[in-house]
């Protein structure tokens, strides 16, 4: 799903070089979780 409002972890990491060397295994699932929370909330408004 390509969208300017939905960012995969890989896309996010590329835009945020400050995360280089930070603990990706705990950061990635958190960033992904809130992308999905917003996706589900937005879609929930139209179904």
């Amino acid at each position, binding site marked *: *799903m390509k969208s*300017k*409002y939905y960012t995969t972890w890989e896309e996010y990491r590329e835009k945020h070089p400050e995360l280089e060397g930070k603990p990706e295994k705990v950061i990635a699932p958190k960033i992904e979780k809130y992308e999905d929370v917003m996706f589900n909330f*937005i879609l*929930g408004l*139209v*179904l």
Partner: protein
Amino acid sequence: MTDIKELQNEREQLFRDLFSGKAPKRVPVTNPATLEFAIQYYGEDLAEAQWDIARCEPVFDKFCQEFPTDTSPVGSLRLPAFYQILGSKAIVMGSGGFMQHPEVMGLMPEEYDEFIAAPYDFIIDTVLPRLYTELDAEPSKKAMVLAKAVKAFSDDWATLGAIRDRTNAKYGMVAPVVSLTEAPFDFMADFLRSFKGISSDIRRYPEKVVAACEAVLPLMIKKGKLPNPNILGFSFIPLHMAPYMREKDFAKFYWPTFKTLVEELAVMGQKVQLFVEHDWMRYLDYLYELPENTIMRFEYGDPKVVADKLGKKHVLSGFYPVTLLQTGDKAQCIDKAKELLDILAPTGRYWFQADKSIISTDSDGKVADNLRAVLEYVYTNGTY
């Protein structure tokens, strides 16, 4: 292990067996009455209780204690706070306290191409401001409104979830994890083009409708995905438009992306429960093609024909007419339950649910009395 924990394990096993194609020890039972019904039945004000969800705990407790059921009787509650914050025109609270969905149109016919190119972006940029007036604002205001709405949504559902968890633990009930999604064609109809709009579009812009259904399919798959798919969870898909379509239109516009949606969810290792709304009898051969053990709750139809056609492959449910609880006496209500058990239990794939959810109480309490009698009957006599 406590008795309640054992009961919960037993109930979970019923659903594990049912959803994996094995005949369970007995027919699992789900109370068709919802939390809205319970709020009214136990004398609470429906509007107030939905705004202040914490006060539902004693209601929910009594409801689970007094009406036999294997699963939490919550229903598809739409809590009002976040809809109010968003200025919703799509879901509004009526004067009786019920949340209602007026016919709305978030997508204009001349916008199909833009929508098809990037449906999620189009929904956020164009559809939401039309359907939610507080989002029709400058970016900073929109961000603030959205933040408040998400917080209200999260808080209310966290409160309700905690009540549900405590009550389930107390009464040993099963609480399947459920996601909600839609058949792509229904999604295009419900909030985007409306019943009337989509019915006209399939004649005026047929290829754009096909392309739009294909464009939203990945969104519907993603929306239906459970965080951790397991045998007790399912994706719930209420089916709307097919009974109002000609079969050749159904085959062209509805079926291809709907079938792919169910297949993709099954590949992820999760169950799908279809709420087969209105009359799907002419589409039974299509339903047969869906992945094995798809759960199908029927609103209408001949249960004998459905059992014959689908009962060796899919999980069957529904059919029990809730209007009978209002019009019939106790014996008639129980006879109907017995009739359905006699027809559907021999498939080994029957889950007792009614044809519709019950959201309103009656003044003399007849519905509740008949409902309790039916649930007790099925709970006690629903052996395979």
